[in-house]
């Protein structure tokens, strides 16, 4: 699960987190996290985002509130999470028991040339999440943290946030479908059945 740098490999981490995922609903923030969940296996219960930077976590909140009996996982990056920091307060206020957020933190804007993010300079997203009121907010730097996190994603009794420090290498692109209407329709049908396409 480690890259040559000794840091966690993002694709190996995401593969492990999504193993035997059952009916887990997964939203991925734009860029590398969307490629990562696609590399793990594209499927209707994946919603990879192509835009809306800063919105992934709170999109997960809207889904978690709408579907309280389903488990919802948002996988995103440090740049996307930093753009939507206020969402941590919004999520903490609602305390959704079925929402987990994983931040794959490579401390860089990987899609735009590898510029450093604020986490490179000490900004601690897990501490910010705890300060907002997400009690289960952890930082993971070694492989032994991954299995317990996978368990929490499926069973935790409150919202969770995990910052996973990962290797900063850009991996080969693994692109999901680009048509948003298709991605949304298949995701909704996976949740709601054929009724998804009729009037609510």
């Amino acid at each position, binding site marked *: 699960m480690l890259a040559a740098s000794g840091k966690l490999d993002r694709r190996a981490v995401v593969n492990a987190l999504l193993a035997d995922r059952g009916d887990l609903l997964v*939203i991925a923030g734009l860029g590398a996290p969307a490629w990562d969940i696609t590399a793990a296996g594209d499927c209707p219960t994946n*919603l990879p*985002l*192509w*835009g*809306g*930077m*800063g*919105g*992934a976590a*709170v*999109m*997960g*909140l*809207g*889904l*978690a*509130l*709408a*579907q309280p009996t*389903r488990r919802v996982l948002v996988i995103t990056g440090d740049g996307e999470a930093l753009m*939507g920091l*206020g*969402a941590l*307060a*919004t999520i903490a*206020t*609602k305390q959704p028991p079925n929402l987990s957020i994983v931040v794959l933190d490579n401390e860089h804007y990987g899609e735009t040339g590898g510029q450093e993010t604020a986490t490179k300079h000490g900004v601690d997203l897990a501490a910010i999440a705890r300060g907002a009121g997400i009690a289960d907010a952890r930082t993971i730097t070694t492989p032994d943290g991954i299995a317990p996190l996978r368990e929490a994603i499926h069973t935790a009794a409150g919202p969770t946030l995990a910052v996973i420090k990962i290797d900063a290498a850009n991996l080969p692109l693994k692109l999901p479908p680009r048509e*948003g*209407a298709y*991605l*949304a*329709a298949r*995701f*909704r049908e996976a*949740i*709601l059945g054929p009724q*998804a396409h009729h*009037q*609510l």
Partner: protein
Amino acid sequence: MDRDALEMRPDAAADWPDRIYAVLKAQNITQVALVPDAGHSRLIKRCLADNAITVVTLTTEEEGIALLSGAWMGGVKGVLLMQSSGVGNCINMLSLPILHRTPMPMIVTMRGDYGEFNPAQIPMGNATQTVLEAMGTLVRRADVPEDVEACVDATIRMAFNTYRPTATLLGQRLIGAKTFGKD
């Protein structure tokens, strides 16, 4: 009303906020995302008092676009309540409902629109309709109480029937206006 007030809110006798609430109920809206505005305060109180409505108070309005996108994925209908200044915060996030063909009704109380006191409200208030339309939103305005219910109903119906962002702008003239005959 006091035209020099820093915040304007409907007179106590105005019942259009209650009629908006009735439209939300009739349209089966069960998630309401908002950043508070004085013009929406009575509607917000009605929503908070309703156990069938999940109210989510946002730190910034763009969160509401993402939140309600997630709600729609999960089969729940929502609306976003905000002041016109908040529309500016939503612009890029509106990419998501356009991309995903997600219904996204917004009910916007206007500032910087009619008899404004605060100069900082003018730039965004003056641009609100233009920037919403630039991002593909169907915009309708209500400037008198008689138009509110029909406008909000149309805004919600067009969003959910045609899968796109829509907005009702509640004019500042309405928000500050008296309901004649009731006071």
